[in-house]
């Protein structure tokens, strides 16, 4: 038996949940994309497979103030600008994005812990939604992700004109229980059927056979020196689109901003594709776009697994495939390098 919520009760569920915490749902933008917005009565939940930006914003916002300084003469006052974070829930997170949180955790929750991230992470509740209509750009299976089982705090599976609901964590169970009797009990068969159907579709997608063979922490030397990087990076226009829509890209910059009445030190997303990413007073170790381009993919396919027990830094969400201005992406990189490798 599983908990079941019929589609027409989704608003009721969101309303009940909103009484307890802030609930964010994907909402269609004016121009065809989707983004997370705070749910209010009347907000329509988007049917889109993906939001344009990933859900990493919730824990690692694009810009956040780290610390403020008041300057007077030779003296400095240091102020911690943080306020108490409110509890919140994010609805409609797909399996790939759920996995990406685990990857971000490995960076931000490893010693020394990033308290800004941790604070947000702890206050957040993830309500996953299994995919039922994956797109051709999806390749989460390559990284061992099951699109049908997001494994979030609570998973929602669309079937039988409604949602089948299962909690995976204590936090999720407590949340579901706290909502009272808006759910009904039903046999899990339709949910299992829907999941099986999704898995079938995943197998038929064009990228279903993409593998990570030939990549990993032990491949550093041969991949770093691979001949393919020059051709692959040829057309790159050095924008940060891929890094900013990526759910696992976590590089950031720290900058100071003079507000006229103090200094606010903030961090913001940064991209290894930018020429000033590694630029120092005495020079730049990554002089051309080839090196910068290589860094991004080496990080995901080699450096990250090397430091994290073989786990890759990509979840196969396909956002970079959809948004790159010149259609260069991790799939093309993997295929070209693998081909080159086998050609040796």
């Amino acid at each position, binding site marked *: 038996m599983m908990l079941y919520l019929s589609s027409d009760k989704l608003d009721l569920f969101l309303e009940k949940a909103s009484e307890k915490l802030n609930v964010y749902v994907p909402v269609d933008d004016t121009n065809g994309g989707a983004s997370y917005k705070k749910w209010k009565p009347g907000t329509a939940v988007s049917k889109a497979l993906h939001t344009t930006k990933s859900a990493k914003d919730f824990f690692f916002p694009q810009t956040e103030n780290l610390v403020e300084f008041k300057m007077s003469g030779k003296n400095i006052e240091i102020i911690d600008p943080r306020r108490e974070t409110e509890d919140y829930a994010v609805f409609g997170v797909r399996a790939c994005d759920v996995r990406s949180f685990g990857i971000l955790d490995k960076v931000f929750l490893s010693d020394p812990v990033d308290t800004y991230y941790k604070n947000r992470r702890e206050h957040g509740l993830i309500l996953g939604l299994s995919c039922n209509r994956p797109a051709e750009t999806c390749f989460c299976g390559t990284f061992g992700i099951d699109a049908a089982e997001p494994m979030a705090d609570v998973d929602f599976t669309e079937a039988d004109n409604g949602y089948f609901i299962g909690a995976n964590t204590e936090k999720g169970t407590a949340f579901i229980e706290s909502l009272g009797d808006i759910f009904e009990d039903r046999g899990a068969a339709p949910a299992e059927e829907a999941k099986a159907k999704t898995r079938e579709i995943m197998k038929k997608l064009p990228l279903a056979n993409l593998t990570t063979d030939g990549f990993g922490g032990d491949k550093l030397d041969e991949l770093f020196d691979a001949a393919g990087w020059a051709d692959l990076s040829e057309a790159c226009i050095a924008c940060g689109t891929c890094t900013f829509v990526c759910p696992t890209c976590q590089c950031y910059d720290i900058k100071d*901003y003079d*507000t006229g*009445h103090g200094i*606010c030190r903030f961090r913001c997303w940064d991209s290894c594709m930018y020429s000033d990413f590694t630029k120092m007073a005495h020079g730049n170790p990554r002089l051309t776009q080839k090196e910068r381009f290589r860094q991004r993919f080496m990080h995901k396919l080699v450096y990250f697994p090397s430091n994290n027990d073989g786990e890759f830094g990509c979840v196969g969400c396909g956002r970079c495939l959809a948004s790159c201005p010149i259609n260069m992406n991790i799939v093309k990189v993997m295929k070209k390098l693998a081909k080159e490798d086998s050609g040796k």
Partner: protein
Amino acid sequence: MQVNETFTPTIVAFCCNWCSYAGADLSGTNRLQYPANVKIIRVPCSCRVNPMFILRAFQRGADGVIICGCHPGDCHYTTGNYYARRRTTLLFSMLDYLGIERNRTRLEWVSAAEGAKFAETMNDFVAQITELGPNRRLEDLRCRK
């Protein structure tokens, strides 16, 4: 837009060194009054005013920005103000297009001999901005006190 009775706007005036800056001087020596909340920034020519200067003035808390240059034909560098005229027109038009109140920006030609016109222009502009209220559409929230 809420109009606050006690609101004193901050005005940034970019003044050309060769005319309106001297015009401001003249209005001072003639004891003509203009509000103290007009902050004058001296520039070598009205043409030196980069659109970014105007935006950054708003960012740092200006409620209105006025550019003062030599009358067309009188530019110290012969043609600077003609270029300035085209550029400023396009920028003002863009700000208007983005929904920024169109009266927050102005360009006036004030010569070195027009001390009275300078004071009059400033008084008028300050009154206009006071009526508009504080700049909220082009402000940087981080800079708000």
